[in-house]
């Protein structure tokens, strides 16, 4: 009894309306008629009642016949064949005249001629122009209604169920369904409702129709809740999905990187996206014939920029002969014209060297940058013409390769990566240079994320920097894709981003 009472209190108002009707009514239509509820509401209530095992729903399928486009027309006018017969009547008419008088289409007239010729009720009248005439048996048919037309008239009044047709109608249906858009078949699901034992029990007790549905200010004020029961909700029921606004996963990754750098005492830099080749390459001792300067790797602008003249002189010497840095230099003639080319920066180190050249940075100093960079590349799952790079440098007396390794290890630890390996590599403006490979515990594999090095003396001398500068950088997308296990960069960056994925991406620490 206690259980039944509780069960009664879980009933939604719709359920409470529908349930008492189920004793006498077993289908949705009749419940709709009696209750005045909409069919969708009843169906929802029935679904809930079934979930609570109060009723059992047996679904049967019915095939319902309805008039289609042509059927609707013919139900009014009669079928083309009777129009044909009525038009011809006792006259002799040419095909053209029949069409004109009957307003039937070419196709319809041709079908009728074929049909009636086969039945032997239509004769041809010879002459200049071929005419048609009905014979005796044909004339008898004029005012007879065909079984097909009778079916159409009945369907005009109401839809019929296929299984309930009498044999004559069934025969007519089979003729009509072969013809174009006269009858359509509609599959109708019919639910037969059956009360379970539990349902029958429930009907015996009085259903408390006065439950509190939605708690509102009124009820709180007048303390109605003290007198009434709350309806018990089905708290396990599924609810519609909602999505909130989110920061972009790349922004989240950038914020994480920014936090690590700032915690380690780094100051953030900023610099222009359009750069001169001077700041992007020459300023850090990248030779003027370096492959990165090829058009297929870099976006060039159709304009030249300006370069700082005094510094350019020093850079020229550094490239040509190594200046006083202890270097041999590249041994070529440095060309200021090449340095003036404007381009979309290919790495954030352009900004690092702008800071060396323009901000007069003094040791000890730690700076970082997170910025957009560009490559003139074909687009695929791992390449877009632009992406983000993050890099940091430290300038101070006494810094060594070992310190670079130590700082990188610290940086990785902050990202939750503890196992790392170093691999020497080549980079035109750092020596030694190294890649740092971290072991990703989740993916269970080694991933290369960081590139690093000690800036070459040739790259620093023009700025009067005579203390070591160590630096490292990483690709932001690469890291974010790894964190979020996203394999296609296009789903993340650019207007091709997948909004569904952005809405649903997981929170990562």
């Amino acid at each position, binding site marked *: 009894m206690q259980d039944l009472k509780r069960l009664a209190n879980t009933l939604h108002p719709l359920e409470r309306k529908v349930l008492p009707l189920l004793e006498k009514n077993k289908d949705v239509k009749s419940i709709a008629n009696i209750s005045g509820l909409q069919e969708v509401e009843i169906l929802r209530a029935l679904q809930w009642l079934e979930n609570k095992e109060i009723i059992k729903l047996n679904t049967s399928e019915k095939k319902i016949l309805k008039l289609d486009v042509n059927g609707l027309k013919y139900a009014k006018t009669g079928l083309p064949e009777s129009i044909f017969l009525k038009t011809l009547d006792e006259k002799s008419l040419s095909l053209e005249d029949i069409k004109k008088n009957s307003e039937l289409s070419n196709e319809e007239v041709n079908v009728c001629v074929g049909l009636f010729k086969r039945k032997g009720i239509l004769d041809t009248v010879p002459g200049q122009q071929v005419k048609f005439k009905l014979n005796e048996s044909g004339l008898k048919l004029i005012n007879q209604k065909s079984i097909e037309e009778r079916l159409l008239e009945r369907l005009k009044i109401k839809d019929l169920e296929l299984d309930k047709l009498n044999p004559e109608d069934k025969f007519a249906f089979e003729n009509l369904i072969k013809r174009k858009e006269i009858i359509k078949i509609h599959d109708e699901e019919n639910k037969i409702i059956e009360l379970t034992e539990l349902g029958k029990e429930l009907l015996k007790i009085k259903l408390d129709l006065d439950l509190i549905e939605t708690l509102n200010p009124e009820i709180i004020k007048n303390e109605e809740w003290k007198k009434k029961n709350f309806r018990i909700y089905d708290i396990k029921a599924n609810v519609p999905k909602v999505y909130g606004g989110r920061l972009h996963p790349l922004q989240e990754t950038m914020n994480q990187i920014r936090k690590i750098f700032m915690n380690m005492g780094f100051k953030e830099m900023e610099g222009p996206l359009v750069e001169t080749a001077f700041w992007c390459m020459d300023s850090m001792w990248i030779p003027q014939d370096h492959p990165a300067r090829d058009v297929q790797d870099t976006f060039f602008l159709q304009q030249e920029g300006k370069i700082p003249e005094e510094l350019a002189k020093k850079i020229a010497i550094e490239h040509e002969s190594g200046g006083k*840095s202890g270097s041999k230099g590249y041994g070529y003639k440095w060309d200021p014209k090449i340095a003036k080319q404007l381009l979309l920066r290919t790495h954030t180190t352009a900004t690092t060297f702008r800071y060396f050249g323009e901000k007069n940075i003094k040791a*000890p100093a*730690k700076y970082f940058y997170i910025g957009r960079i560009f490559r003139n590349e074909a687009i695929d799952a791992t390449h877009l013409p632009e992406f983000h790079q993050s890099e940091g440098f430290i300038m101070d007396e006494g810094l060594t390769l070992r310190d670079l390794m130590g700082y990188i290890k610290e940086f990785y630890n902050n990202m939750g990566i503890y196992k790392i390996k170093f691999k020497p590599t080549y980079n035109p403006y750092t020596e030694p240079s190294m890649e740092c490979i971290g072991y990703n515990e989740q993916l269970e594999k080694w991933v290369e994320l960081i590139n690093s090095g000690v800036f070459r003396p040739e790259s620093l001398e023009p700025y009067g920097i005579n203390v070591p500068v160590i630096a490292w950088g990483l690709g932001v997308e690469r890291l974010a894709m790894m964190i979020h296990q996203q394999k296609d960069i296009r789903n993340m960056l650019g207007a091709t981003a997948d909004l569904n994925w952005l809405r649903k991406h997981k929170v990562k620490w």
Partner: protein
Amino acid sequence: MVILETKHSVLNKLVKKLSLKELEEILFNLGYELENSEGDNLRIDVTTERPDLLSTYGLVRALRSYLGLKNEKYKIKKSDLVMNVIDPAKEWPYAVACIVKNLKFDDEKIKEIIRIQEKLGGTFLRNRRKGGLGLYPLNKINFPVIYTSENPKKIKYRPLEYNEEITGEEILEKHPTGRTYKHLVEGWKKFPIFKDYKNIIMSMPPIVNSHDVGKIDENTKEVFVEATGIDLKTITNAFNILVGALIDMGGDAYSINVKYENKNLIIPEFKEESRILIVEEVNSLLGMNFNSNEIKKLLEKMMYEVKSVTQDKLEILVPSNRSDIWHNVDIIDDVARAYGFNNFELRMNNVASIGSTTKSVEIKGALSNLLVGFGYQELFTLFVTSKQDQFDKMNIKEMKHIKLGKSVESGINMIRCWLLPELMKALNNNRSIEYPHKLFEISHVTVPDETKDVKSKDLLRLSLVNCHSNANFTEIKQILDFLMDSLEIKYEIKENEHGSFIPGRCCSIYFNKKEIGFMGEVHPAVLKNWGLEMPACALELYLNDIFKLE
């Protein structure tokens, strides 16, 4: 990234027996990578600054040295043969050459030679822009050889794998290699040629050899080798790597006396540069406490010859085929590689400083927070875009913008000068995703500015767009009100005309008499251009002007 293709069995024979795993580890420590292996075939990723490793024989020397095995120095015998350099093309003035005898070529060795030539040409010689290499069967050549130049119309010979003699000009049009490298000699009045004493044309560098006298095969025992190009140092380097490989294949190299108008060179000369390395220099860069003998041992693993050692310095010889030693730091890097990067004890010298970020980053963070609270999804769209997207589809006239030169992707020809079109593009790409769509981006646009060294400036903007069945002006103005109120900005609005928006439903936004943005209901014609069947309203704010950013 450059790939050296070689064979495991060859390395086992010429270095010592190494398992794939051992080899992989040694390569990793040296800074290279076993990219993949298929049976005996290995693909090794070596870095571009070491052209000497582009030949199997070069790699063999490096590995032997690293493992403590001795390498023989390259030996050169003298010959009295002469090559005259007379009136060379001014664009391609340098040539060096020598001969190599007693070669036992087989199919594999010929392939290796071709590989070295191609890899050096493609990387170190920058697709032959800096120089080219050639080999000829010695028995078909009569000395003295001449390196000179000639009007391309008058050059006539049968290029490699071609059926008939054609002129230099025709080679550029008809011969496949000629077509590939045609751009190298564009505009040259005279083309470089090698010819022998009997005036037989041997080749037309840097394009193609003669089929009759410039083709080597398995029967070739003796060769004439040459390199030509724009810079003597570079071509000598490439030439030495090729000749070194021929010597390591078992050949005997004989020098040639190359006579220029004003100098004589005896080629080849495997010149080892002498350098002084200070112990302190090494230790201060690496953070180590090596003594000079420890450094000596490490240097020897990396093919350096140490002539003398004192307590605080070493006199060393740099291997002749190393073109990447500009400074002592390059040698110290090799010391570190020999020691093993993963053997260093890590440390973190304390560098005291206080972290900080920029005003732009802080503004972006604060505004993003407000918008996310309103249910806006942040986007990161691209800077590179097209005039069609930025202007045509938005129904507006072209604005001043930064044009881009050649792009690999068609449809990229400018940098964005406003953000909204890129958000519209995102709406277009996400038409099938459940609505409502509320998107925002806070990022830069780039506009021309002649006063700047880079002729442009990046401006921070905020753009947002609502797209759903009843998106309207009120909705967007509510957001503006909220944002401006949060920022304590008293703004004014003036109706304006903007092709992207419905007339009478768009406006400019002003603050202190300065325009700081615009907003409106997006015009149905624009919606149609972007394939959208939902109304949209949008706002774009000039954060630079609002916050006086520079």
